[in-house]
């Protein structure tokens, strides 16, 4: 419709502006094509973000209208809320342990699957499944069963004469069981590693083998350096999702026992939806955004020191 009317008016304008107009039209068409995404982005991401920024400066219980309190939420958070610090500690511990383990494990499995063997396609799919079902309630229930007092893990342990305990209800082990769960969901970094491994030219390995390099030094001198862009990508993605972890703790341990699995996102949810302190929860969300932004920036800054791009001549 719009293009028809603009074609009619086009006839009267000068050549120069016609060219401009055409460029503009081209852009408009491009925007029209991405409009479904654009609408979603504005409506479901930018809009709520602005709303939450405003709410973070208010006292808002969802049932009555928000009232402005300035920086009060942020001040309370940093000076008068010990559970805020607990949740930060838990989340950092979780991210710093689970992300390296998960990446190492994903790389290990990807190395196993990189060679074309019989049935390797099937194995790849099977090992990807945990990542698809990862956040689901069914897995949470299964994890409870596995690590419960009468669960399968204790069954296996008792076979070796070790008396187990209720791992999920234990303050010392609850976080570890969640870390194991997340590491087990290594599918998506594995796939990306797999793609990265296949990009490494086989000549490099052949040349190294001729020179008598061991598998071990091949791995550290060829595979790892060539893979650094992929490692970099995986590290950023996994770190961000690590900071936002919610489902596993919410479903399996509900933040307990003794707040040992009180992830930041779980505490945020509790404040907002259980105790109706949406203003405070919004403020927490913005602090999390800043934390994630800072860590992402740090990784990006450090990347020039350790990420190798072949296309930039090794720079």
């Amino acid at each position, binding site marked *: 419709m719009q293009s028809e009317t603009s074609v009619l008016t086009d006839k009267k304008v000068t050549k120069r502006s016609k060219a401009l107009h055409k460029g503009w039209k081209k852009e408009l068409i491009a925007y029209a094509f991405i409009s479904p995404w654009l609408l979603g982005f504005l409506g479901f991401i930018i809009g709520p973000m602005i709303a939450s920024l405003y709410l973070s400066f208010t006292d808002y219980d969802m049932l009555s209208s928000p009232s402005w309190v300035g920086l009060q939420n942020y001040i309370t958070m940093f000076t008068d809320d010990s559970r805020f610090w607990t949740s930060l500690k838990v989340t950092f511990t979780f991210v710093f342990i689970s992300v390296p383990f998960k990446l190492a494990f994903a790389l290990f499995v990807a190395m196993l699957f990189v060679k074309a063997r019989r049935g390797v396609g099937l194995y790849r799919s099977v090992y990807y499944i945990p990542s698809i079902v990862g956040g689901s309630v069914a897995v949470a229930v299964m994890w409870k069963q596995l690590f419960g007092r009468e669960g399968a893990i204790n069954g296996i342990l008792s076979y070796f004469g070790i008396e187990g305990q209720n791992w999920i209800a234990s303050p010392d082990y609850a976080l570890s069981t969640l870390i194991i769960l997340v590491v087990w969901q290594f599918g998506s970094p594995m796939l990306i590693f797999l793609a990265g491994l296949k990009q490494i030219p086989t000549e490099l390995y052949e040349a190294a083998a001729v020179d008598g390099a061991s598998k071990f030094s091949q791995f550290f001198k060829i595979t790892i350096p060539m893979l650094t862009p992929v490692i970099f990508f995986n590290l950023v993605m996994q770190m961000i999702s690590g900071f936002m972890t919610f489902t596993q703790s919410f479903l399996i341990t509900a933040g307990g026992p*003794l707040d040992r699995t009180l992830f930041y996102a779980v505490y945020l949810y509790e404040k907002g939806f259980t105790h109706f302190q949406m203003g405070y929860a919004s403020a927490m969300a913005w602090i999390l955004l800043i934390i994630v932004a800072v860590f992402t920036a740090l990784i990006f800054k450090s990347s020039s020191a350790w990420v190798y791009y072949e296309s930039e001549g090794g720079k």
Partner: protein
Amino acid sequence: MKSFSKFISFMIILVLLLGLAAGCSSEKTAEGEDGEITLRVAWWGSQDRHDKTKKVIKLFEEKNPNIKITPEFTGWDGYWEKLATAAAGKNLADVIQMDYRYLMEYVDRGLIEDLNSFVDSGALNLDDVGEAYIEGGYVDDKLYAVNLGTNALAMAYDPAMFKKAGVEPFKPGYTWEEYAEAAKKLKDQFGDGVYGVEGAKNSLGNFQYYLRQHDIELYNEEGTALGYEDDKLLVEFLNYWDELLKDGVAAPPDVTAAVQGRLEEELIVHEKAPTLWFNSNQIVALQGAAGRELKLALLPSLPEGKEGLYLKPSQFFSVSKESKHKEAAAKFIDFITNDLEANEILAAERGVPIAAKVRDNLKPQVDDAAREMFDYVELAEQHSSPIYPPEPSGAGELDALFTRLAEQLNFGEFTTEEMAKTFRSEANKILAKNK
């Protein structure tokens, strides 16, 4: 690389298809043709309650062909989150199941309707309902909530285990000391893996009961601070349970933590504890889960003390202020309250029905567990004092705070004095917001 990109495109198609399917399945909630009304009814509960309530809804629809009901039900976990979100989005269901603890939050914010005009018009008939059964739903003489069943704090016990250990069932008037002695005896009888008490029952509701025995309420009258001045009572109460825990009579926290509030997982169900402190209406579901006879007893009493028990509306139905069909909503509540057939289906699962005719009709035909509950509520009525006023805003948070601190105490991270002090300062911080 090729298989990788194939995989990605497959995933994208899958996601898009799923999105499409979700988009199509949204239900129609608007008003239908020929004046048909659609009413949304929300409640929390167990599977048993969902099944029974849905059956009653069907019966109601048969008798009122112009009203259609859309049920919205979940467990207790998540119900209030869902309700608050709906309230914020001006999308509350027409009829909502309400709890005594949350009543003031919804009244204060003008989210629920005063039903007095429907009582006057006769749409909601309360002629058959005694004062004690309905009073909990009034705030300033306005009827904001209609009680669906009455219950009281109670202790379930396993008569077979008591008999085996040679312990007499508790008679009204037994003391806290006698309870502890019996628990020790039971523990000695059954040994490892079985406990005399299902856990250190230091929850806020039980402490409130203990306070009431000392003639003190948990909150001050304005709801802006705790109602007691001296931490001595809380320390005493906590010491009582702490001793049982340290003597190995009460189940340790890592055992109780695994229960996570699910009735089917309670120790008494699995014969690992002889008693359970809870609400009397839950006996129906508990007996169903255990599959054997369980009975109800009063909680321990305090010599020279006051009666701490109270009859409590187990839950209410309220009508939301923005509902477009308040008359129909009132009619539905009337149906649940007075219809004999409906209550035969519901079988007092929400507590003892409030209408006298319904009670008389139901009592001879209910099963053993429900009869036990009927008898218990009658017994509790004789040992009760009037219920405390509806709890102030923040009561839910206070409850969560107490549970969290008690957990730390049970895991040995706190002394009882420290816990009492921390609870006071944190609780008053929460309640101060009501000033």
